């Protein structure tokens, strides 16, 4: 049953050191505020799962929260590399990062399998790719009826999934609309789910077939306006493309990254204070 509380409480109670954590949002509704809180609370040894690791995972990796990364595309969308991710993989800074690498199709299917209570997913995939040579968690099976060969990957079953959504009602029912990505599957696949929302309302006013997560599959809901920034929330605010571009400079070297994170995240009490500092610094160093 959903607990309506502050983001700090939600992360404090439901996200622990060593957890397998999925933070999802396919460029839309990326839970940036929640990732900052994980960094503030200095979580470590996390296995991070995400189809498209971008700025939030660059920050978590650079701050040493992650032991392992399960992913299918890691970059700064529309800008270029993730420098902290690359530094960890190429040079082991701040420490070595284990990676389990998939294709989008495989990881999306792995979430579906997890949500469906199955141990593995079957897909037509990876044929001719070198990925299976380097990822022992990609296998091939045969259809028991046609004999056809298909790929199999283990399902993703996070200890906790973290997402950002547009709205929740006072019971904790959550509404996501627009580009819904893989969020529903990520929540249904997880043991616990933390959801930040733009606003908590009396009535979701959701369409009958809208993407709604009932309160009893959600562990905690925290109201965090602008909680997806620099990602966007459809119907609330647009993507801050300037920040994505600025991040390329901020994250390019270790000192500038660390300095920025200390000033903007570690030195701030919460997301609201972070937003104030950000307004002053203009996101610059």
């Amino acid at each position, binding site marked *: 049953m959903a607990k309506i509380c502050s983001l700090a409480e939600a992360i404090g109670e439901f996200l622990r050191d060593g957890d397998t954590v999925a933070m999802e949002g*396919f460029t839309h509704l990326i839970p940036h505020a929640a990732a900052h809180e994980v960094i503030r609370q200095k979580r470590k040894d996390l296995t991070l799962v995400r189809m498209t690791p971008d700025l939030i995972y660059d920050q978590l990796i650079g701050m040493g929260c992650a032991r392992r990364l399960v992913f*299918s595309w890691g970059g700064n969308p529309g800008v270029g590399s993730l420098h902290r991710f690359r530094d960890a993989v190429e040079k082991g800074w701040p420490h070595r990062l284990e990676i389990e690498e998939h294709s989008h199709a495989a990881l999306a299917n792995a979430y579906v399998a997890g949500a469906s209570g199955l141990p593995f997913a079957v897909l*037509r995939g990876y044929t001719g*790719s*070198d990925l299976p040579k380097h990822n022992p968690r990609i296998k091939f099976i045969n259809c028991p009826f046609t004999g056809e060969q298909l790929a199999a990957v283990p399902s993703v079953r996070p200890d906790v999934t973290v997402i950002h959504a547009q709205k929740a009602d006072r019971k904790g029912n959550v509404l996501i609309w627009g*580009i819904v*990505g893989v969020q529903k599957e990520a929540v249904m696949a997880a043991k616990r789910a933390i959801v930040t929302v733009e606003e908590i309302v009396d009535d979701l006013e959701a369409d009958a077939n809208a993407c709604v997560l009932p309160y009893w599959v959600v562990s905690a809901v925290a109201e965090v306006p602008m909680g997806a920034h620099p990602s966007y929330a459809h119907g609330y605010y647009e993507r801050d493309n300037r920040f994505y571009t600025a991040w390329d400079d901020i994250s390019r070297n270790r000192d500038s990254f660390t300095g920025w994170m200390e000033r903007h995240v570690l030195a701030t009490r919460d997301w609201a204070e972070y937003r104030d500092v950000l307004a002053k610094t203009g996101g610059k160093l």
Partner: protein
Amino acid sequence: MADFTTSEMMTVAAARMLGNGTVCFVGIGLPSTAANLARLTHAPEAVLIYESGPIGAKPEVLPLSIGDGDLAVNADTVVSTPEIFRYWLQGGRIDVGFLGGAQIDRFANLNTTVIGPYDAPKVRLPGAGGAPEIAAMAGEILIIMSQDKRAFVDKLDFITTAGHLTGGESRKEAGLTGKGPTAVITDLCIMRPDPETRELVVTDLHPGVTADQVREKTGWDIRFANDLRETGAPSETELSVLRDLLKRTAEAHGTGK
């Protein structure tokens, strides 16, 4: 004839290959620019699908990311990302997959994973994304990449996405269903796989480009078709629509360049 850049020529040449009414799975960046140019010129009925979920996307400006809100607003419908890969791509509903890449070889295999050894990479690239399954299951694949010796290489350090593998019938023998890459469009030329060997052959040179320029920018001994053609220069319409689109985009994203 209007004045145009090689990058404009590349985008226009790629856009022309997208037939009206075709269902196109669009990668972000150059493929998305070309696909939307096609939609805004000769292919108004082209159906654009992005892996983030929009089906029949009609963005006003180009998305910087595969999940930009503008993709959802005018789409015919927006489904979940798993559904895109399961019902639409794997379900065999895609005519054309429009891809880019970091590195390509003579058989149009793509590398977007690593430069150097996988376990100790010199350069760690973003990874596969949707490409391996798009290239496997779309009816055919168009690849658009700026040409450069470091991008068009003799041997890939890593095959992320299968094109024609080792050439000949190797793609079919591997069990890949779609036709695979049918054209590679660069800022210098258009390459197409040889019907037998499946090795990429230059079939069209863009206006003013010489064979030597192409050789200089290709990491293998590139072959040229006997009936080598010249790509038609961009029309006034193609150029103005493309330039307006890029202008609108820069303004909207505040990334003015």
